[in-house]
């Protein structure tokens, strides 16, 4: 499903990723771990083409990203549910509208949109907050809105960047439970986290990164 081959990414004074090669199979749920600055976020950004690698090739589903035209990028991103570290919620829109936005860009009609948005909010226990605005929510609630926006359509791939960075351990456990559920429905999931508790005992594959290098793999 996701294949990275000899990927390197350099910024002005530092190397974010160096000669990284790995694959994630369809339906797998994989954790990426490592300290801050190890290249986890850069890796995810390369997969949804927020950035392009300096060297190497990436393929996601049927797309060879290096050959992808700019006009096709929205199509790639519609197949990826992304949970951003900084949430990226629109503060001038309520919870319902924030989640609905992902459906509106797909041109889903209003009737279906309402059903799907409320279903997604129910899944993350935020049905009662649909009229609230992001700034009125706690960090954990905001994180769950982002998850609802990312998973509502059972995307082919879910990329999550520190999805439990702003939540307590109970909420974190709930988030991982949600990931497992959508993974069971067939989505391929890649979770970047520095929190080892998150994958301990899950039995899922863990890719370990340090200063831009893939330094090992283990079972969680």
């Amino acid at each position: 499903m996701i294949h990275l081959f000899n990927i390197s990414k350099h910024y002005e004074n530092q190397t974010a990723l160096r000669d990284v090669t790995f694959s994630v199979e369809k339906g797998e749920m994989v954790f990426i771990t490592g300290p801050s600055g190890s290249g986890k976020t850069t890796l995810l950004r390369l997969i949804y083409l927020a950035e392009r690698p300096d060297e190497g090739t990436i393929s996601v589903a049927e797309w060879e990203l290096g050959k992808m035209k700019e006009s096709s990028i929205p199509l790639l991103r519609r197949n990826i549910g992304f949970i951003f570290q900084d949430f990226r919620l629109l503060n001038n829109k309520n919870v319902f509208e924030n989640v609905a936005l992902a459906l509106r860009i797909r041109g889903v009609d209003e009737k279906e949109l309402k059903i799907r948005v409320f279903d997604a909010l129910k899944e993350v226990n935020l049905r009662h907050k649909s009229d609230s605005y992001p700034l009125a929510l706690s960090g954990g609630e905001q994180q769950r809105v982002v998850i609802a926006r990312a998973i509502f359509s059972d995307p082919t791939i879910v990329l999550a960047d520190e999805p439990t960075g702003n939540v307590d351990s109970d909420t974190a456990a709930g988030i991982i439970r949600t990931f497992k559920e959508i993974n069971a429905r067939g989505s391929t999931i890649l979770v970047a986290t520095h929190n080892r508790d998150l994958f301990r005992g899950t039995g899922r594959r863990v890719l370990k990164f340090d200063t831009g290098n893939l330094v090992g793999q283990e079972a969680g």
Partner: protein
Amino acid sequence: MIPYSFRLAAQSILHEKWINFLSVLTIAACLLITAFVAVFVYNVDALTKKLPEKFSMMLYLKDNLPGAGIENILNTLRRDDAVETVKYIPKDEALKELKAELKDATYVLEGLDENPLHDSIEIKLKRSVLGPEAVKKLSTKVKAIEGVAEVEYGEKFLSAIYSIKMGIRALGIIFIAIMSAGVIFVCYSTVKILFYRKKEEIETYKLIGATKGFIRAPFVIEGAAIGFCGGLLSLIGLLSLYYILFLKLSLSIPLFKNIIFPSQISPLLPLTGLLLGIAGAVIAIGRIRY
């Protein structure tokens, strides 16, 4: 997608009401001035189009031409595409007219043994040929007709009128182009400001898979709405000025009675505003990169 884009545009217009309102006023002022210039140019054009009714060319014939020769000249002139009407004036009739015009000063003609005037032909030209070059060409052509002694027409007057008309038209076009650029710039600036204010929002749209069209549409609609409202407001201003000011003034100042209000300008103003607004918005958004 389209209704949602309209909704986003409407929300933005209401949310940023002051900047949008000021833009609408500026556009309305620009288009109102433009409309005034257009009306002025239109009136100058209409005025010069009336000239052929007054403009004529005089052909003075050689003395003692036989009737058949005169008839031949008249027929040649009637066949010419540029000629509207032909009128033969015998020299006796011309003298009679001259005496009538001189009224009490007929003494200037006393002592003349014979009629000093020539038989002449007055021709009026079609509107389509009334340019200095075409008239000059025609005068050369008719002068070459056998029996024509001299051709006279208001060459300098015609050239001056034509130059004034073309000059005013050119200035009008330049002015309208400048004002149109001004309207585009106002729409451009407004949409650019709104676009920058929503930079974060646009980034999020891009990251969750919005197409360029989805991102652009609300801004283009907003630009179009601003332009259209500006155009509509300028039309209201123009009509108000025409019906309240001009029509009242024409009662006391006859000159104003001759001013024509071209009705086709009414739908043109909002439409021009709309198109210029779209142009400004499209330029402001520029190329969207992922």
